[in-house]
Each structure stands twice: as structure tokens, then as C-alpha cells.
């Protein structure tokens, strides 16, 4: 039953993509309200799915890779809803929806919705640690999306070939400011998640700890490089994309080891 909610949510995000594609084909690109509402509706169904799953499990629904991916997709939509309009980045919906659809389609199609081998008892510190870290992934994902938008805008400005989308992208400096803020949000939340991991009270696999610290160092380096002027904004944008791809891969590693590890 709960999977149907996720399917409906995916359809909402697909509608946002289709709408954007149709508008771009027609040479008119006004994604403002429609994309926001389509993503908003998808977010409501995601929340309903996670809520039902959470009630069934009696804890935060992040017990297997399937739930973790959906939780990350939910965090991305959450950050878009909070950050997008706030920073006048409503076009972000056009870029957010494909990423959410990719994640949810993978979650729905891959045989990864396997119940944890043992019923995990509720541990508030562990749940806080895991959920706050995954919300941080939402911020990193949005920084990655803002990075894509930055590179698209930058490329068009460099080559002097301005497409329809150019007129709807936010200014470069606004995008870079949004990237920086999202990186700080993600880094702050991830640090909080990492620290809370020490209070879990259960031994965690060393590979999981190393992966988590690796992600923390990666984003710390990007922020450090940005403030010490090691990297130009274009490189920071590119690093946000590389960083999120790496973080997503490490997340898969963390979840995989967590599933095989029984505390």
C-alpha cells in the first residue's frame, strides 16, 4: 500500500519534468508556480509514504537502502521547498525533479526493499544521527543542483549562445551565494549528525565511520577552498557535483554495511 504513495509521488515529479520539457520545446519556459506545486504535491506523498512506513516500523524509516534513498529524495524536496523560493531559485524545481525521479525510480525498481534481518529496536540517538545526516544529504543534493545550474548559466555566458532557459536562470552571483549557503547548511547538519553518532551507544562498523568522515572532509575541503580562494566559483560548482556523486556512493556503502551489521 505505502509503495503506491511513492509511485504517485514519483508521477508528480515526472509531471514537473514533462511540463518543463514541453515548455522548453515550445520556446516558452515559465516553470515558477507549476513546478513548485508539482514538487510540493510529490513531497506530500513522499511524507505520507515515510509516515506510514515509520508507523509500521515503530521508528524512523531508514532501515534499508530503499528507505534511505526515499528519505534522501524527501530531504531534497524538503530543501527545495524551503530554499528554492527563499533564494528566488524557483527554476530549481526543473532541476530537482529529475534527481528525485531518478532516486525514486531506482528505489522502486531495484530489489532493495528488503526488511532488515533483525527487528531493530528504537534508539533515539541512532535515529537522530542517521536522519540528520540524510537531511544534510538533501542540502548537498541541492548544492549539486545549484552547481549544475551555475555551470549551465556560465557556459551560456561564455559561449554567447543564450537559450530559452538562460532568461529564467538566476544571476551567477546569486547562484554562487546559494551554493555557499547550501554547503554550509549541509556541512553544519552533517557535522551534527557525525557528532551525534558518538552518542549512539552501540559500536558502529569502522568502514561506516571512515565513509562518514570521508564525506565530512570532502565538503570541509570544498568550503575551505572556497574561502581561501583556492577554487574559482566555477570549480566550486563542479566540486559540488563531484562531491554529491561521491557522497551518494559512500551512502550506498554505509547503508550496505549497516544492513549487514547487526548491533
Amino acid at each position: 500500500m505505502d509503495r503506491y504513495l511513492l509511485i504517485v509521488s514519483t508521477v508528480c515529479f515526472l509531471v514537473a519534468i514533462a511540463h518543463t520539457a514541453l515548455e522548453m520545446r515550445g520556446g516558452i519556459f515559465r516553470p515558477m508556480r507549476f513546478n513548485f506545486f508539482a514538487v510540493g504535491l510529490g513531497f506530500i506523498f513522499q511524507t505520507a509514504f515515510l509516515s506510514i512506513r515509520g508507523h509500521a516500523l515503530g521508528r524512523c524509516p531508514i532501515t534499508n537502502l530503499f528507505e534511505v534513498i526515499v528519505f534522501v529524495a524527501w530531504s531534497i524536496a524538503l530543501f527545495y521547498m524551503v530554499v528554492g523560493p527563499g533564494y528566488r531559485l524557483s527554476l530549481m524545481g526543473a532541476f530537482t525533479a529529475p534527481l528525485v525521479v531518478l532516486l525514486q525510480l531506482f528505489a522502486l525498481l531495484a530489489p532493495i526493499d528488503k526488511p532488515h534481518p533483525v527487528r531493530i529496536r528504537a534508539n533515539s540517538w541512532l535515529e537522530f544521527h542517521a536522519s540528520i545526516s540524510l537531511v544534510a544529504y538533501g542540502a548537498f543534493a541541492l548544492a549539486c543542483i545549484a552547481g549544475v545550474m551555475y555551470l549551465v548559466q556560465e557556459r551560456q555566458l561564455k559561449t554567447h549562445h543564450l537559450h530559452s532557459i538562460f532568461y529564467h536562470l538566476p544571476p551567477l552571483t546569486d547562484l554562487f551565494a546559494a551554493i555557499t549557503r547550501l554547503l554550509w547548511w549541509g556541512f553544519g547538519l552533517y557535522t551534527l549528525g557525525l557528532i551525534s553518532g558518538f552518542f549512539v551507544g552501540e559500536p558502529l562498523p569502522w568502514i561506516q565511520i571512515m565513509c562518514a568522515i570521508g564525506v565530512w572532509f570532502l565538503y570541509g575541503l570544498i568550503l575551505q577552498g572556497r574561502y581561501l580562494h583556492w577554487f574559482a566559483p566555477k570549480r566550486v560548482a563542479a566540486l559540488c557535483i563531484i562531491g554529491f556523486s561521491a557522497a551518494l556512493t559512500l551512502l550506498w556503502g554505509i547503508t550496505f554495511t549497516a544492513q549487514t551489521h547487526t548491533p
Partner: protein
Amino acid sequence: MNLFCVGLSHHNADVEAREYFAGHVESDRALRNCGCNEALVLSTCNRVEVYAASEKRVSTDEIARCLVRDDGPHRFAPPFYRYEGEKCAQHLFRVASGLDSMVVGETEILGQAKKAYEAARATGVAGRYLHRLFQRAFRVAKQVRTHTEITRGAVSVGSVAVDLAHKIFGDLQNCKVLVLGAGETSERTIRALVSRGVADLRVSNRSPERGEALALAVNGRAIAFEQWLGQCREIDILITSTSSEVPLLWQEKLAPMLRERIDRPLFIIDIAVPRDVAPDVNALDGVYLYDIDSLQSIAEQSLATRRAQVAAAEQIISQHVAEFDEMITRELNCPAQSSEHPTVGIVEQGS
């Protein structure tokens, strides 16, 4: 009641003819005297048009006589066009939407039409027919702007440069601009930037007198020509238009300065011919170089996009023309339902 439009525009009359028939303070009264129950004169630099409603037919010659600025003999064979009924509505909808303008999609005409309508309404020369016609026209124009890309992009070199600056920096208020060479085009570009909030302007010219004169004219400050390169560490926008035969700026010269400002973009507008900035500068990270050709090409591209949207705009207009025609016919059959001077916005919501 006949609803009609008589006018001339940049399509069929030169500026001298448009001046001659531009209308005067007595035009409204004269139009009423010659049989128009309602009349409105829309007079802009590109058109002079009379929109009127009358019970009997008023000839084009009579309308033309009401518009002549002086009492002297007609110096022109009036090249007026005339549209009646739904053709009149269609014409006004096209005018208000910017489809009939010299620069397709320009939005100034909508403001001018609103002003003309407000003036006619205030003096009582616009009644219920013109009220419905103009309210519908404003609604159509809004819909055309929202649902098509007819107003997209800038169509002049100066406004393209300003649009690009906005796309790079967002708010231009804190941007520092250096103008190298005190040419006419650079002055126009500066004025366009000032209109968007730029306050920090610096002018550098080989001849200090001209540089100082331009700096004074645009409320900026003059910089000695020998010092302009050092300014590249601070500025956000560089506008060059000198008459130098060789480039003044190239990659090796600029690169060391960029290291000190790695997270701030530099927008270079090179409107000089021959160019003042070597094209390889565009390859530097964070530098966006546009020469006169690339600005012109974007302006042309925007104009082409606007023209491509005309068909979509015409479709919206034809739907409204049909609806308007139906509404007017209905009202003519039951005239008692409408007041003589309806309040703006009641009949045509959303205009």
C-alpha cells in the same frame, strides 16, 4: 453603434506626417462635434490613432481634420488606415500587445494606451464601448506577455549589455564600472547601467578633458589613462571603446590581476572597432567578454525569438476578438443592462 479606428503609424507615415496629425487639446471636442459619441486619441511617437464609437458614419477625412495641429492647408495626402468593428478590436489588441510596434514586443505602448484611456475617461469622452474595448485590450496584452515570450530578451546593444550584467551580478547597485574611452556608445551603455542602479562609475580616456567631461556627465570620477589597468583588480564591469589600433588588454596582462579576485566575475563589454580586448581573454575563468558583434547577435536573436512568438500572440488575440465581438453584439441587443460610464475594472476583471 459603429466602433472604429482611424490612424496612421510608422508603417505608413513618416515622422513629419505623424507630427502634422498628432492631435491637439481641441481634438476631443472636434471629434464629438463631427459625430463621434465616444472618442479617444492615442498619440505616440510611432502612431496617431483615433478610437471612436458613433451612431452615424464619420468619414476618415473628418477625423483627419480633427487631428491637424494647425489651421493651415493640408500639406499631406493623409495616409490613414481605418478598421471597423472586430477589425478595430483586433488592431487595438495587436497595438497594446506590442505586435504592431516598430520593435516587436516593446511594452511602452501598453503604458501609453493606458494613459490615453485614463485621460479620455477622466474627461468623459470615453464611454461604455471604449471602456470595454480598452479594458479588454489591456487584458489581452497582459495575457500575451504572460503566455508568450514576445517581450523576452533585449533588442538593442545597450540593453543587451545591461541584461547580461544583471545575469552575472544580479543587483547592479554595488557594481563598480570602468569606462575606457569616452565614446558615444559607451556613454549610452553607461546611462543604461545607471538606470539599473549602478552608482560607482569611473571614466578613463586618453584625452583627460573628454574623460572628465563624461565623468561629470554621468556623475562618475575620472581616472588617469595610465592607471586604468590597475582598476581591473577592483571593478566588476569594464566598458571599452577607444580608438586604439592594437588591443589594450590580453590574457597575460589580465591573468595576474584575476588571482586577487578569484570569486568575483569580470564582465568586459568591448564596443571598440578594432577591438580593445584580445578574444583570448574570454578563456580566463570568471571573465565574460562581449564585443560589439556578439552583443548585436544577441539583440538580433532576441528579436527573432520575439518574431517567432507572433503567431502564438495572434492566436490569443483572435480568441479575444471573437469573445469581444460576441460581448458587444449581446450588449447592443440589451443596452439597458449597462451603465453609461461603468467603473474601471468591473466589467473586465484582471486587466
